[in-house]
C-alpha cells in the first residue's frame, strides 16, 4: 500500500465528522413515480421516450420476431449481422429468415475479430435485460455469449425487448433485480443511437457508436412478471 494512500486516508480521517449523517432514504421520492400501470402503458411511455432519442421501435411476437428481424435487415441493407449464438434468442435465428443477410455468430475473442467487427459487420443483435419506462432506456447486460462490443461497434444495433421486463424507473429496475448483490463486468443503459451536440449545439447522430438503434418488442400484451 502506498504512502500517499495512507496520508490521504489519515488526512480525511482527521477531519471526518464523528457521527456520519443519516443514510439517505430514496423510497419517498420514487414510490409515487412507480405508477400503478400495466404493460401497455409502460410500453407506451418507454416507446415515447426512446423514439424521442431517435430509436426505432417495432412490436412483434414470440414467434414472429426472427422473421421481422430478417425483413428489417433486408430493408436496411445489412450484409452481415453478428449475434451471440448461445442465447435463447440467438438459437431462434435461422438463415431461412434472412434472405439478404449473412448471419454470423460471434466466435473467438475481440482481438481475433476486431478487423471484421470494425469494418465488415453491418449490424449487431443483442437481447436486453429489460427497459425503463420513465426515460425510454434499454438495460443491457453483456455476457460471454453477447460481448460488450456487439452493441457498440457495428453501425446498427438491433435489440430484443420483452415488454414484461419494463420497469417504471431506473431505481425500480435495480431494486427489483437486486443489482447490488452482484453486477456483471459491464452493465449498460442505452437510450438511443450514439449522438453528439459538440459542434455549435447541433445534434448529430452516429458519433462513435451505432448510428441506428432498432428495438423489437415482444409480449406487448403480457402480464408484468
Amino acid at each position: 500500500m502506498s504512502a500517499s494512500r495512507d496520508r490521504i486516508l489519515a488526512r480525511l480521517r482527521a477531519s471526518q465528522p464523528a457521527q456520519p449523517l443519516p443514510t439517505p432514504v430514496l423510497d419517498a421520492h420514487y414510490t409515487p413515480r412507480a405508477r400503478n400501470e400495466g404493460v401497455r402503458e409502460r410500453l407506451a411511455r418507454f416507446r415515447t421516450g426512446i423514439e424521442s432519442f431517435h430509436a426505432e421501435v417495432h412490436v412483434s411476437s414470440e414467434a414472429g420476431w426472427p422473421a421481422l428481424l430478417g425483413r428489417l435487415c433486408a430493408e436496411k441493407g445489412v450484409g452481415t449481422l453478428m449475434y451471440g449464438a448461445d442465447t435463447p434468442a440467438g438459437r431462434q435465428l435461422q438463415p431461412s429468415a434472412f434472405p439478404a443477410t449473412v448471419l454470423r455468430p460471434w466466435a473467438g475473442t475481440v482481438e481475433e475479430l476486431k478487423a471484421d467487427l470494425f469494418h465488415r459487420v453491418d449490424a449487431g443483435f443483442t437481447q436486453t435485460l429489460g427497459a425503463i419506462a420513465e426515460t425510454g432506456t434499454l438495460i443491457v447486460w453483456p455476457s460471454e455469449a453477447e460481448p460488450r462490443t456487439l452493441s457498440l461497434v457495428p453501425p446498427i444495433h438491433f435489440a430484443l425487448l420483452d415488454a414484461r421486463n419494463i420497469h417504471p424507473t431506473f431505481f425500480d429496475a435495480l431494486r427489483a433485480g437486486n443489482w447490488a448483490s452482484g453486477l456483471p463486468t459491464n452493465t449498460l443503459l442505452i437510450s438511443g443511437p450514439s449522438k453528439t451536440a459538440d459542434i455549435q449545439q447541433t445534434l448529430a447522430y452516429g458519433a462513435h457508436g451505432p448510428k441506428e438503434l432498432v428495438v423489437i418488442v415482444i409480449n406487448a400484451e403480457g402480464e408484468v412478471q
Partner: protein
Amino acid sequence: MSAPHATSAAASSSKGDARPIAFVSAQALRERMHDAVNDPHLRKSFRGAMDFLMAKRAAQFPDEAELDSLRTLSEGIRQYSLSRLPDLLEQLEANLTRNGVQVHWAADADEANAIMLGIARRHAAKTIVKGKSMVSEEIEFNHAMHDAGVDALESDMGEYIVQLAGEKPSHIIMPAIHKTKEQIATLFAEKVPGVSYTDNVDTLIQIGRQVLREKFEQADIGLSGVNFAVAETGTLCLVENEGNGRMCTTVPRVHMAITGIEKVVEKLEHVAPLYSILTRSATGQAISTYFNMISGPRKPGEKDGPEEVHLILLDNGRSQAYADEQLRKTLQCIRCGACMNHCPVYTRIGGLAYGTTYPGPIGKIVSPHMMGLEQTHLLPTVSTLCGACGEVCPVRIPIPELLVRLRGEAQSKPHDNPVMVGQGAGYSPLASFVWRTWARIYARPGNYRIFSWLASRFRALTPSRQSGWTAARTPLTPAPRRLRDMVRDRQ
C-alpha cells in the same frame, strides 16, 4: 482562434497538444477578461450556447416539487457520502480489488501522471485513446504523456476539436463551445489529412468518427474519467452520449480510469437520483445515451473488455477542502456545469479567460484548493455574487457563500494556522486599513455622525477620479446636507 486565448494556447506542437496553462497573474487575468468581453464573436457564441442550455434545463424540470425533492435527495446523498468518505474509499478499494481492478492513490498531479506513465511503459504503449475526463485535464495528462513520448488522443468530439486546435476546453461538458462550425470546418481542412472545407455538421462529425474509429481499434490503452464510483459493488459509472467512453473502456487491452477522491457513493441505488439530476441539469437531457457501469476487467470466458482495469484516486487539494466543514461542501459537486451555464460572468468572458482547468463558479471554488491561493486569490472576486449558481446547483452547494469565504481566506492577514495553502496571498495592508476604518465609522453612531458632518462640509474636496469607479461612472460625491439634518428640519 479568438484573441484572448491566443497568448496561452497558440503554442501547439506537431502532435496537437496544448501547452499547459500556467496560471495567469492578476494583471493578465484582468487583461484576458477585458479582451474576452470585447470579442463580439466569443460573446455571441457563449450567449447563444448558454441561452440554449438554460432553456433545455428548464424544460426538464416542469414540476417544481419534483425538482425540489430530487435536489434534497441528491444533496443528502452527497453529504452523507462525504461524511463517510474515508470509510467509503476503503470499501471501494476492497470491492474493486476483489473484482480484479487495480487501485492506485495519488496525492497530486505528478504522482498521478507517474502512475499512469508506469502502466503505459509496462505495456510498451504508444497510443492512449481518451474518453472525456476533466481530471485528466486537471493533471495535464496529455502534456505529461507527450513529454514521455506517448500519444494521448482525445476522442470526445469536443475534446478532439479542442486538441486539434491546440487549445483547452472552455466548458466542462461542452469543451468546444467557444468555436463556431466555420472555425471547426477550417480547422479540419487544415489539420485532418485529405479533408476539404465543409461546414456541414453531420459531415464534420462523420470525419471525426472515421479518424477516431481507427484509433479505438489500434490504441494500446484507453483512459476515462468516472462520474460515480460505487463502494458497495466496486463499480465505476460513466455518463456519455457519443459512445467514445464505451470504446475507450472496452476495446483496448488496458483501461485506466482516473477520478477525484470525492466521487464515491456508498450504495448502487444512490446513483439513480444523482444520474437523473446530472443529465437534466447539465444538458437538459432526460437521460444520456449511455450509462456505462464497469465492475471489473474481462473475466475468463468473456470475449471482450480490457484485460486490466486500473483506477487512480486523486487528492490534489481535495483533502484540504474536506478538512473544513464549510469548504467541504465544494466536494458535493457532480460536475454538471449548470452553474457556469447560468453565470452572467462566465457567459460574458467564456471559459478560457479564467486560466484554470475548471472555469465558472465551480472553478472559482475548487481551483484554490488545487492550485493554492497564491495563484488564485483573485478568482473568487470574478463574480457579481448574484446567486444564480447557488440557485441552480443540483446538490445545493452554497457557491456564493463559499466565494465570500474564499475572499476572506485570500485577503485576510496571513496567520500561523491557515486552513488553506496560500491564505492571505491577496492581503493588502492599505485595503485592510481602509476597511477597518470604514467599519469603525459605520459601526459606531457617534463616529458616523462626525464623519458624515465632515463629508458634507468638505464635499468640494472629493477627488473627481476615483480609480475603477469613475472609469465608466460619474464620481461619487457626498450630498450637501445629511439625511439626519433634513429629517430634523421637517420635525
